[in-house]
Every structure is written in C-alpha cells, then in structure tokens.
C-alpha cells in the first residue's frame, strides 16, 4: 500500500514538471513546534517531598505542527507528546501520537474539511471546539465540516463528528456524536438597498444535536439532545448591540445530577465608543446549560458548548490569583467597563495623556424553587427545579471592582497603576469545603524605565490583603530587557499573615517565599526561556477555562519556534 502512495506521489510530481510548473512555486509548507519541560526537585518548605514527586522528576509537553498548502488545498498534521505531562495537567494526557490531521479544500463558494477541525457557532454557546495548549484543553471534532457561501453575505455551515477525549479512540457507543448547522446573514451585504445604511444588521441561527445511546438501567434518557440558538448583531454609528439566546432540551447528566429540566443561556452586550472613550455593558444568564458529548463525565472535557465568563481577565499574578470560571449549572451576571483617555495637554492628562479603565462585574447564582411540593431541588430523575428568568439569588459567586491608570510620565518613564476589590466564593468556584469567601484588596504598580532606546528595566510591585484562604501576598519583580532579544528577571512572591488562618482540614501554614529567576532569548519567532525557582499553587485560566497548578519547585524550560 505504501509503495502505491509513493508511486502516486512520484507521478503527481512528475506531471507538474512536464508542464514546467514546479509545484514549489505554488505550494507552501509551514508549521510550528513547542516544547515545555519541567525538572522537579523536593522542597520541604512548600510541601513538596519525594513522595509528592513519586519518581516523576521530569515533565515534558511538546507538539509539532505542519501544514501544507497548494492553491486551494490544505493538509495538516499535529503531533503531541506528554511524557510525562508537566505537573497540573490531567494524568490522562500522558501519551503521544497524531491527534490532529486533516485535509481541506477552500474556495469562495465552498470549503470542505475532512479529518480533525475546530469550529464555533456564534458566541459558542451551543458549539465551540477549540484548543488551548497552555491548559492542555482540546475538544477538536473529528469528522466533516462544510462551509457554503451561496450568495454575498450568507454563510451556511454544517458539521458532524466525534470529539477528542485525550487519547481515547472513538468507538461505537464509547461517547456521543455531535452534529450541527449554522446560518448567518449579513443583511447589509445581502440586501442591496441596505448596503449604504447606517444601521448594520447581522443575524444568525444554529442547531446542534448530540447522539448518545441510553444504556442506563434506571432512567429513560434522551438519546438525541437538541440545542438551538439565535443571535443578532446591530450596529448604528457609535453604538453596538449583540445578543444571543440558546435553548437546550432536557439532558440529564452527571453535571446536573440527572435532572430532566431544559437548559438555556443568554448573552447580551451594548457598547458605545468613540475616539478616546469606550463603554460596554454585558449581561448574562445561564441555567442548566452544561452540554457534553458524554453525559457521564464532569470536568473540563468533551464540552460541546462554551458559556463564556464575562468578567475582566486579569494580567498580573495577584489580580489573577482568584479567577472566575463559568458555572454552567446556573449563574446571572453583568459587567460594566469604561475606557477613557484623558487628552494630552489637559490638567489630568499632562504632556502625554492618561488612560483610565474602570471595570465592575458581579455574578450571582440563579434562584431555584422546587418543581413541586413533594420534590426537593435537584432530585435525580425529576424536573429538578423551577427558576424565574429574571430572579437572582442572594448567593454571590464573584464580584470585581477594578480601576487602572496608564500613564506615560516622560520619554523614559511609563507606569501602570491598578486597584482591585474582589469577592470570591472559593467553595463554589474551586470546589473546596469549609472555606470562607475571599474578600481581598489588591494594589499594584508596574513601572518601566527606558534606559536607552533598546534597554529597559521594568519593576512590578503588587500587594494582596485578605483574611481568608492563604492570607496576604506581596509580589515583586524586576526585569531587564535588551530589546528585542534578551530578558533577565528575578521575582519573589511572599505569602504572609496566614499564621492564624486555619484552612479546612489542612494544617496551619507558615509564611513562605516563592522566588524565581528567569531569562530568555528570542530571535524572530524562536523563543527559549528558562525559569528556576518555586511556583506557588494556583489556577491558570486562559479563555475561560482554568487549570489547577500545584506548587512546584525546580527548573522550567520552554522552547517555541515556527517555520
């Protein structure tokens, strides 16, 4: 068989040469490569003993990607190896192979992909397949995807396939099958009389269904679960309005304790912006909306839909220490953000102007009432509960008020200042028991001194004050960079004021320093970085999905490149 492929390959190549068209003129090969390694050492002071390491002294995650393009055709492969996965990744990641390969044809009228692919309908409420390397998250679909554009402004998509579940091969009835359709119309493009209109209108609708066999001995479960969503995007001058509503039929699962209630989700935003000023208000309601292609699993796997958290994603270590994660079983939240640039030359703006960003968000639980007089809320095999669409529970999951100033002080000094006030229900959001909700004040300064045109020194100083969880933290960092290639940094996070805090069943903890030293070299798209020191226990979140990272100590290496 292999010889046959080779023969075809040679024939194809030679046929091109006959016509004097070397395929090298039209084809392109590119790709990328990354390897993240960690070497662990015992560190008793932060609780890492030989038994915690358990012989796995090295963790290595790596991938290589290659894409071949020739005219309208594309083919790609991705190899991954987690031998063994670095700490904090799911042990089920351990393994190696080609989890992602595809071929695709792409024209203005139609695109077809066969193999593995990613896709999102609208905001992703009922379908989003994507990957996030830093989290080890990948719910790629394996199947067929077709995108058809029959007329200007109209786009129709159809997909079907099974989802990636680490390295477990899809077999008959091993997990669900996902099918979906999506249509989107940009009215200003499709309807000629609207082409010059100041009102921009884009509407879309989608339907997704999953099939999973009912093998349950106790309940009669729906084998086909349908979900439907509609969306509209309106723009008029400086205003923009977007809303999407999704409905899912009853889908008893391990995530909702096998109740038969329908689910829904709503996401809306209204924004106003002009040069120097932007305002956005977002609202969200989620009710029983976990949608996975295996009703038996929980955790960050096999998600078909994606309900985004809408609070600000923070960028500094302490402001990002307690990140919010969507509660698919139910939540109601809002967010308001204002960005303003105080003009140059004004009293507060100074010589260079000052940027201000203010952000407030809060998320509460939804109200749940018994479905009838005799059934407790969330009882398996029942309708579960009733919930009024506009009623909010008193139970606050999360609150975040933050204000940020961005100021250029002179040609060589720049600074960012931020204050944040946070409320975080750690029992709900991180599944811990006997913990008080965290109330924290956080303040930080990030100052850059440009020593010369290519040399800069950046200093970060952060403080977090709280009586709960692990108590107070300070963090300091100094980074020296020779742009664009070299950087050297030293940092320390100090956890203190925790001597009197009793953590659930855990022992009382001692103050601790988490120091690191790092350096890196970047040339073009090749970056090599080393970090040596201690990593505090925490949560890493990217794009709304979070991963718990245990404390670790040792050396980390990261190498990335592309071609």
């Amino acid at each position, binding site marked *: 068989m292999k010889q046959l492929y080779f023969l075809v390959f040679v024939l194809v190549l030679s046929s091109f040469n006959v016509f004097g068209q070397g395929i090298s003129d039209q084809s392109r090969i590119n790709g990328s490569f990354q390897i993240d390694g960690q070497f662990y050492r015992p560190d008793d002071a932060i609780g890492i003993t030989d038994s915690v390491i358990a012989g796995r002294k090295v963790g290595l995650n790596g991938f290589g990607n290659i894409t071949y393009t020739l005219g309208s*055709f594309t083919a790609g492969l991705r190899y991954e190896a987690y031998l063994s996965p670095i700490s904090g990744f799911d042990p089920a990641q351990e393994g190696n192979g080609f989890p992602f*390969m595809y071929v695709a044809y792409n024209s203005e009228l139609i695109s077809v992909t066969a193999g593995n692919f990613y896709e999102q309908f609208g905001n992703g409420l009922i379908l989003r397949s994507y990957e996030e390397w830093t989290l080890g998250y990948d719910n790629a679909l394996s199947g067929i995807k077709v995108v058809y554009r029959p007329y200007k402004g109209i786009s129709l998509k159809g997909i079907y396939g099974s989802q990636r579940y680490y390295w477990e091969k899809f077999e008959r009835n091993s997990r669900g099958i996902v099918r979906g359709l999506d249509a989107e119309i940009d009215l200003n493009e499709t309807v000629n009389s609207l082409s010059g209109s100041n009102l921009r209108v884009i509407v879309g609708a989608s339907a997704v269904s999953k099939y999973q066999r009912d093998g349950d001995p106790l309940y009669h479960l729906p084998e086909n679960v349908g979900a439907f969503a509609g969306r509209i995007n309106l723009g008029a001058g400086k205003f923009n309005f977007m809303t999407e509503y999704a409905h899912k039929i009853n889908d008893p699962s391990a995530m909702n304790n096998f109740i038969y209630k329908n689910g829904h989700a709503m996401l809306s935003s209204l924004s106003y*912006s002009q040069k120097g000023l932007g305002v956005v208000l977002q609202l969200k309601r989620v009710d029983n909306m976990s949608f996975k292609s295996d009703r038996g699993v929980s955790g960050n796997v096999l998600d078909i839909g994606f309900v985004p958290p809408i609070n600000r994603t923070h960028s500094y270590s302490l402001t990002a220490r307690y990140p919010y994660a969507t509660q698919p079983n139910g939540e109601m939240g809002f967010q308001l953000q204002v*960005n303003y*640039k105080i003009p140059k030359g004004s009293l507060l703006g100074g010589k260079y102007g000052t940027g201000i960003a203010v952000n407030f968000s809060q998320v509460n639980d939804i109200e749940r009432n018994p479905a009838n007089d005799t059934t407790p809320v969330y009882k398996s095999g029942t309708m579960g509960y009733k919930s009024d669409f506009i009623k909010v529970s008193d139970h606050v999951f999360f609150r975040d008020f933050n204000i940020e100033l961005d100021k250029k002080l002179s040609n060589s000094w720049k600074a960012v200042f931020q204050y944040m006030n946070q409320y975080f229900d750690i029992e709900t959001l991180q599944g811990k028991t006997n913990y008080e909700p965290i109330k924290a004040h956080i303040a930080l300064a*990030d100052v*850059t001194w440009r020593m010369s045109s290519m040399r800069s020194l950046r200093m970060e100083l952060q403080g977090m004050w709280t009586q709960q969880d692990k108590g107070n933290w300070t963090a300091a960092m100094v980074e020296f960079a020779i742009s664009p290639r070299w950087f050297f940094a030293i940092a320390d996070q100090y956890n203190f004021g925790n001597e009197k805090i009793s953590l659930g069943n855990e022992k009382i903890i001692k103050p601790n320093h988490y120091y690191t030293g790092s350096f890196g070299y970047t040339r073009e798209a090749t970056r090599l970085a080393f970090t040596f020191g201690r990593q505090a226990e925490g949560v890493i979140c990217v794009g709304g999905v979070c991963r718990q990272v245990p404390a670790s100590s040792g050396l980390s290496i990261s190498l990335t490149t*592309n071609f």
Partner: protein
Amino acid sequence: MKKIVVFLFLAAIGMSGFAQQSDIPSVTIKTIKGQNFNTSDISNDGKPIILSFWALWCKPCQKELDAFNEHYETWQQETGVKIYAVSIDDSRSTSRVLPLVNGKGWEFEILMDVNGDFKRAMNVNMIPHTFLIDGNGKIVSQHTSYFDGAELELYEKVKKIAGIK
C-alpha cells in the same frame, strides 16, 4: 482513517491550482463590526504590512500596540505601512475589544480571530506575535514577545522594504 488522510493529502497535491501563493493563508474571520473577513484580503497596495496578534489579557501586546500607535502617523507618512491588529480574544471578551481600541485611540485595522483559526494558520504559539509582510504578501520577518524599543528595530525593517534609507 490515517490512510485516507494520507491519500487525500496526495490528491490535494495532484489537483492543485496554479495561483501565486502569498504567505498569508486564506481563513475566514471577523471584522470588529462582526462581518466575515477573508484573511487573504489583507493587503496594502504593494506597501508593507505589520500584522500583530494580541488579546485583552496580554499586557505586553497592548504595550507594543501603544508603541506602534504613538508612531503610526509618522510611519504611514514615511513608508505607507498599514497595521493589522488581530485580537485572539474569544467570546468572553470580544465585546470589550472595540471599546478598548477606541478608548486607547488605536488607528489600526482590527480583526477578530474568535476561535483561533487565523492564529493556528499563521503558526502563532504565543502572543504578542508580530509579522512584517512585504507588498507581495511575503513574510519578511516575525517576532514573538515585546520589550520597549522593539518597535524601533521593526520600523528599520519596514523602511528597508519600503525602499527608504
């Protein structure tokens, strides 16, 4: 499955078109107004293009774009360079992108790569990741990470491909 893929891979090679390849792949993403945008339409009348991947949660990305913005008027006058800033924010934060862009007064073309399709097609593993593309769509240089001053080195390269000393 693997055999089929390999076969189709070869078939793809066999049935190719004859168009000249630019280094910018054709991927459908969105404009900041929510309209579909094919990335092969990224162009600048034969003048240089800077293509920078960023996100709301990425501080160095915003520092880099702030630095570009500070010089953008001068750069455009001198070389005609055009800057595309591709946000890889997903639906959790897409509606905050336009207010931030306007709040910061950025004048770039903003594109929205909400599910990372363009990012993957361009082999972007980490952000900020900035490409310099010449008038024929060829990638002249690229760089990941940003430190103060990197914009000066980049602009030297822009001037070189624009034919200005």
